[in-house]
């Protein structure tokens, strides 16, 4: 978290006894606080005092979290549970929402799904204005959302892609009942110098919808796919399938 509360949160780390000394420390700690933000209970992010998730399945981790949360709740008086809130995904007033799914790591279901919401200015949508004929689009111009398409949880790749290169095509795809359509497609190279450096080639396919009266800014639904290179301790370099669905926001 990056707000003035950081000092108060730091005190939870330093003064509650939940966080052990540096040699035995992981980087995730969970605290249960009462309604006045006073410490009640805390625990490390992984079962059995582990410092990383290896050796524990998702279900073991879930059982551990549930048990620790129940320990904390037994020390509190909590109001009756309301109906669970409806789904509230990360969102922005104007931009795109990027879903990233990575296969081949962790449990059979793969890594946790990433949902990033990125803001985009009007001028960043201009590159996708309706084309009168097939046009080229510099993939770099799509970087607000392309740069977010990387797996979570890899220490060697913490930041979004640094470089986006490639040329895609944007072509009109008909008009019906006052709605115009276009298709964006092509390949892009995403790369970073972080760590030992890596790159991933992706294919992009997107449908853009232009309604009259809504200016140049389209609605977009895209799919981006690639294979992410990773060094596996036992298997050498492996390629992990990455698939992303991207949707414009607010529509």
């Amino acid at each position, binding site marked *: 978290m990056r*707000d003035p509360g950081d000092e108060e949160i730091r005190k939870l780390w330093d003064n509650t006894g939940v966080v052990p000394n540096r040699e035995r420390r992981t980087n995730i700690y969970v605290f249960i606080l009462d309604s006045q933000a006073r410490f009640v209970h805390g625990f490390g992010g992984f079962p059995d005092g582990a410092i990383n998730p290896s050796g524990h399945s998702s279900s073991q981790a879930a059982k551990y979290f549930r048990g620790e949360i129940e320990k904390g709740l037994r020390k509190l008086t909590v109001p009756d549970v309301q109906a669970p809130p409806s789904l509230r995904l990360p969102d922005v007033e104007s931009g795109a929402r990027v879903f990233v799914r990575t296969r081949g790591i962790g449990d059979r279901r793969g890594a946790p799904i990433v949902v990033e919401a990125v803001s985009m200015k009007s001028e960043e949508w201009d590159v996708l204005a309706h084309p009168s004929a097939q046009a080229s689009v510099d993939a770099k111009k799509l970087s607000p959302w392309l740069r977010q398409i990387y797996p979570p*949880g890899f220490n060697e790749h913490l930041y979004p892609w640094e470089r986006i290169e490639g040329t895609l095509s944007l072509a009109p795809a008909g008009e019906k009942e006052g709605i115009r359509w276009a298709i964006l497609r092509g390949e892009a190279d995403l790369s970073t110098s972080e760590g030992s450096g890596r790159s991933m080639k992706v294919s992009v396919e997107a449908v853009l919808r232009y309604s009259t009266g809504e200016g140049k800014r389209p609605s977009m639904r895209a799919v981006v796919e690639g294979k992410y290179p990773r060094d596996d301790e036992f298997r050498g370099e492996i390629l992990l399938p990455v698939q992303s669905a991207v949707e414009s926001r607010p529509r």
Partner: protein
Amino acid sequence: MIELLFLGALQDAEVGRILQKYEAARPKDSEMSIFRLDWARSWKEAKERAAGEKRPILLLTVQNEHGGLYGGHC
């Protein structure tokens, strides 16, 4: 005219194909249950809501250079 109609049908089919691919790629709500939790977007909001609603706070902290638990890149 027949060529234009054929091209129109092809374009419709292609738009439909990509939209179906997007629907298949977009995670189902059931896969994103973590976003049904009542998240606060800041420490300030969490404290204010906890005090006002008389509810406890579950605070997840991560020491990282970049990213955030909320979106998943961390």
